[in-house]
């Protein structure tokens, strides 16, 4: 077998990663996972309005994308929501993580479970619930920008802060409690301990959590679909409505841009997580 040319040692009984059937399974899985996405990206450069058959390379549809006012507006909305969502999710997530790590109180297990609920609940249930909730309490509609994005932002914060909390909580696990006691011993109040010793330790977790919240917010479709209106369209929702019209390469281009932004941010977040692990081994 040609495979053995690279590794001359004979295959051991537990060398599963070298077995053909495993490699084949992995290859097929990756193919079905990524072929559609790669196809999507490739066909965004397709010189054909109907975008069914490849008719040549062009970047025209990217130009069209950046000139599409309603699409750019939607992108602006998405970014605004994502920024606010990130700020509040990170703060809420950090406080939640700290409370769960530091204190013992009645109903702590219930609180921990309830806080993690948004991760488990199907998005569509959350979306419908949010929509009914905002309608029921008479949340003002028709507000000027950016206040008209408030309903969506609140919904986003609600479902993304638990993710941030989990990331930050993981970082707190590697915190040496003697550092906090020592700061106390040297004269610090509880707040000063938090500010001077805990937060610096949490920093990599805060950054990773923030990036995660940003990505979740930017990409969200289901919950946003239920909480947005005709004046408050976000990027993913706009792409959806464009697809219902016609699937021109412009839609592909928009999707590709979204994928790219998400990829870059996620890669950054992963790098932060790796630094987490290295730092916690050193300190």
């Amino acid at each position, binding site marked *: 077998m040609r495979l053995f040319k690279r590794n001359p040692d004979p295959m051991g009984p537990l060398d599963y990663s070298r077995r053909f059937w495993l490699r084949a399974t992995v290859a097929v899985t990756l193919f079905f996972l990524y072929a559609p996405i790669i196809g999507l990206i490739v066909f965004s450069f397709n010189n054909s309005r109907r975008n069914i058959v490849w008719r040549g390379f062009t970047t025209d549809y990217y130009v069209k994308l950046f000139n599409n006012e309603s699409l750019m507006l939607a992108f602006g909305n998405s970014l605004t929501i994502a920024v606010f969502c990130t700020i509040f999710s990170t703060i809420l997530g950090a406080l939640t993580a700290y409370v769960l790590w530091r204190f013992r109180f009645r109903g702590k297990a219930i609180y921990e479970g309830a806080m993690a609920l948004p991760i488990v609940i199907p998005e569509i249930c959350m979306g419908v619930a949010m929509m009914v909730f905002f309608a029921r309490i008479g949340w003002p509609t028709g507000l000027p920008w950016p206040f008209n994005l408030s309903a969506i932002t609140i919904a986003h914060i609600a479902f993304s802060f638990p993710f941030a909390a989990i990331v930050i909580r993981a970082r707190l696990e590697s915190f040496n409690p003697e550092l906090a006691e*020592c*700061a*106390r*011993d*040297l004269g610090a109040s509880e707040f000063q301990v938090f500010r*001077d010793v805990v937060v610096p330790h949490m920093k990599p977790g805060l950054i990773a959590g923030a990036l995660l919240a940003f990505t979740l917010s930017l990409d969200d479709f289901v919950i946003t679909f239920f909480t947005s209106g005709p004046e408050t369209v976000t990027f993913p929702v706009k792409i959806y409505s464009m697809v219902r019209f016609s699937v021109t390469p412009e839609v592909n281009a928009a999707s590709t841009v979204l994928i790219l932004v998400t990829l870059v941010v996620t890669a950054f977040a992963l790098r932060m997580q790796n630094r987490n692990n290295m730092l916690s081994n050193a300190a």
Partner: protein
Amino acid sequence: MADQTLSDTPIIQIKNVSKIFGGNVKAVDNVDLEVRRGEFFALLGPSGCGKTTLLRMLAGFEVPTHGSIIVDGQEMSNVPPNKRPINMVFQSYAVFPHMSVEQNVAYGLKMDRRPAKEIKERVAEALDLVKLGHLGKRMPDEMSGGQRQRVALARALVKRPKVLLLDEPLSALDAKLREAMQLELVRLQKTVGITFVIVTHDQSEALSMANRIAVMNTGTVQQVAPPTTLYEMPKNRFVADFIGKINMIEGEATDAGNGEVRVKTGSLGEITLKGTATGKVALAVRPEKIFVDEKQPTDPSLIYVKGKVGEVAYFGSYSNVFFDIGTGTPLQADISNVSSDIEEFTFKTGEEYWVYWRKADTLVLGD
């Protein structure tokens, strides 16, 4: 390392302090202790004896379930750790990883809101004291364990506390560094002149560094005394066995008047010794107090018995020889190698000798 003129007024008074966790775990059981001003005091005992809990109550991280702690005349029960005139060096050193050495040492002074100029001067002084003057700008992850410990020391001492607490200060250091730090800590304490209280499970550490040692077991204080007293006059079996090595021969004791007891043992017969313990006791003698002779000793002030050589461990300057004297447990003797004649000091298994020691060196220990 004990000669210092110490003041009479205690700086720490621990009065009937108990700490109970979770309703029924008694970590500290009715402890009564006094630490004198300027003393180097040690809390010594095996793991789980309550010494660390007691230290944490002094620092303020645990609140006593019963009793009170008084520091320099001030009742500490409502005083949180950040307001006590006490500072602690933690077992993991707890050097803040995101701050430089100088920033670490300055932290306590910053919390006290001292002016910047004063902070700078005092930090430099403290770093010089622990011989880290040239490493002010270093980050902790660029330093060795021993250096980080000195940062922790400087950081605590710069605040000029009334008492410095140290939690197992030498346990994380390698043997050579440990020896050097033992001397270093004693020197530091004499230079700074404040009271040190250390917690340790290593009896040789406590013996070599402390003025007085409180030996603890299962939450209670067994004996508080200077190292020499603890070693030569332990109050009970636990203290005798915990500090150094000791031989114990079981027996029954009855009061013989005049501060003496008559002890009946299996293989040694009936002996009258100075002591107060009665009932089931152990006759105890330290291994280095035992001598051997080929002829039977005749001096009435000696206890002597025939012994057959069992295991022998050679340590260069002395040999640790186990003798079977018919009591079931072999008798351990540390025999110094006073002569260079190898034939003379070699003990071979099976050889028989007369093993003897002075009655004055024998202890009668109850539980």
